[in-house]
């Protein structure tokens, strides 16, 4: 079992998400994260899927993905060959007595406060998957009200 980052360039049409995710679910794979958005090419979108699985079976999934009529290209990236980012929003309780510490923490990890109202702050964090996880952990010391992560997006280096 190895972590795979699969990137898919496809037509931006209804149903393409179901077709793609179906090829994972029918083999009993749980998609760890999935992010999708438009690209610089009109009418095309790009998926980044992170999934844990057997190399041979995932190679079969990659080939089956490639066969989908709406899929233009599929890459199964090796971790070392990509630049990847994940984005998280974190709503934390910022009580007066903690604000100084929190502010220091925020600036030390290059997070940003994007919303602040009375004693609730919403922070924005960006980094690779591990960074984002450890940053979130740092705030567990304070009260996290809500959090959300985008899932990884990735491109090949160079």
């Amino acid at each position, binding site marked *: 079992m190895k972590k795979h980052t699969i990137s898919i360039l496809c037509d931006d049409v209804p149903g393409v998400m179901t077709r793609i995710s179906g090829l994972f679910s029918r083999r009993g794979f749980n998609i760890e994260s999935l992010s999708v958005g438009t690209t610089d090419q009109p009418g095309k979108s790009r998926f980044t899927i992170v999934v844990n699985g057997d190399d041979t079976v995932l190679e079969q999934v990659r080939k089956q993905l490639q066969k989908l*009529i709406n899929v233009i290209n599929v890459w199964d990236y090796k971790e070392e060959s990509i630049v990847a980012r994940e984005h998280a929003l974190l709503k934390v309780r910022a009580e007066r007595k903690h604000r100084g510490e929190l502010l220091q923490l925020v600036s030390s990890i290059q997070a940003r406060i994007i919303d602040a109202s009375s004693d609730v702050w919403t922070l924005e964090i960006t980094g690779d998957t591990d960074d984002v996880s450890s940053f979130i952990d740092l705030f567990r010391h304070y009260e996290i009200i809500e959090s959300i992560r985008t899932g990884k997006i990735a491109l090949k280096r160079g």
Partner: protein
Amino acid sequence: MKKGRTYGAKALVKTLEKLGVEVIFGYPGGANLPIYEALASSSIKHVLARHEQGASHMADGYARATGKVGVCLATSGPGATNLVTGIATAYMDSVPVLAITGQVPSFNIGTDAFQEVDTTGITIPVTKHNLLVQNVREIPSRVEEAFHICSTGRKGPVLIDIPKDVLKQDFSMPEPKEIVLEGYKPNTDSHPGQIKRAVKLLEQSRRPLIIAGGGIASSDSYKELKHFVEKTGIPLIYTFMGKTALSDSHPLNFGMCGYHGKVVANQAIDQSDVILALGARFSNRHTINLETYPGHKKIIHVDIDPAEIGKNVETLLPIVGDLKSTLHKLTDHIHQTANEDWVSRLRDIDSRALVTPVPEKELNQPAVMRIMQEYLENPLVITDVGRHQMFAAHEFKLEAGRNFLSSGGLGTMGFALPAAIGAAMACPDRQVVAVAGDGSFVMNCQEMITAAELDINMICFVMNDQRLGMIVQLQDEFYKSGFDISNLGSHTDYVKMAESMGVAGHRAVTAEELHSLMKDKSLYQGVHIVECIVPPGENTYPMVNGESLLDIVEEGGR
């Protein structure tokens, strides 16, 4: 309607005409009625099935018999869901079927309207591609696209779902556009370097073997295969889907391999040193168990679908491309590799195969099939699924070509009768013969009514053993309880059933009766059902009853 104006359904039908469609197998309903309105003034013939599943198998039989695209049509909701088994059958055997479904009007989609189902959602896993057409102007190009996808590369079913309001909407027919599918570029040209390497491997091998699969039919490479076999002298075995890839009487054809294969064929996989697999996908019916499969790492795997390479077996050399042109290239480059010792070793194994005697007076399934063949000239045989199917695969000695149609991948009971109707529509000059069991026949027996209304010639033999034979056999071999779940009873009168549905019914209990029936010229005109009374306890052998392809037995009882 003004000049140049048309409406959705009309544009659909016009496009189908332009693509050369001659017949549609279908069933009407609220959501596809506009298509029937347009069919009224079309050159396309419509066959009214009596169940949408029947329509889908008819389109499938038509496609398998000709290599052309078979078209079926259903309404929304239950019409569409009834097509699903037929679509899946075509998908598993890579048959080009175009399924068209009416959908509830656009403004009702997603409201759980009457007869609404998510047709494209349901059929995603069993189609090569499917689409919902939402804009009437797209109908012509989408239909052409669907047809193109269906009939190129690795063939397979495509479904088009069109809402009723889109079918009825007026518009001006746009100029035909060139189809651009950025994500669909089947790789048909096999790599010359790989061809060279394959030739070298085959020439250096001492015990080469060909495994022919369904790809020979899909790519229509019968002649090319024969030429290759004869130039090289390499012995051939086939998977169930590869039956009739090469004539059964060819001296280098060593028969079917796999679960119910011949001992020699399974042994050949073990004893060969290089295997040339031609359009075979190494399904579990062929390999039994991938852990114990003796073919690994000696396979030159030729397939048009890159996803088949390495899916089940470890290959020695992959060749992705069209089989027909690949065989041409291989034949051009290769010299004779025949190894007489190897071929005679296989002949020797085969000569020791158990020959079960066939009774002279009574009928059993092999006897029925042998008697039939005395009277049939190059028949087009369609089988159902079950014990009779395996008897048929072994007993029928057929010529190479589209002469043996069966649901191999999905194993769909109820396939034979409707598929034979489709085949008979496609090939009016041929002797179309269906063989079914009494279990599978009943699964789509309503299609006798369809057949009765058509001007076709076909005979459907029903092997009446009063059992679900394959189930009996599996229970005999692998289960102990003795629960008699497969007893179909003796109260069905298949002759009356046939007659009540408007086709001729006959019954044969003895060999003599079957002979005299087959001698009667009138059997070859119109639609006939022949019920053959055969013994219930007659299992089909050889059969693998262990963990490996080589654990094959030739008789029961162990």
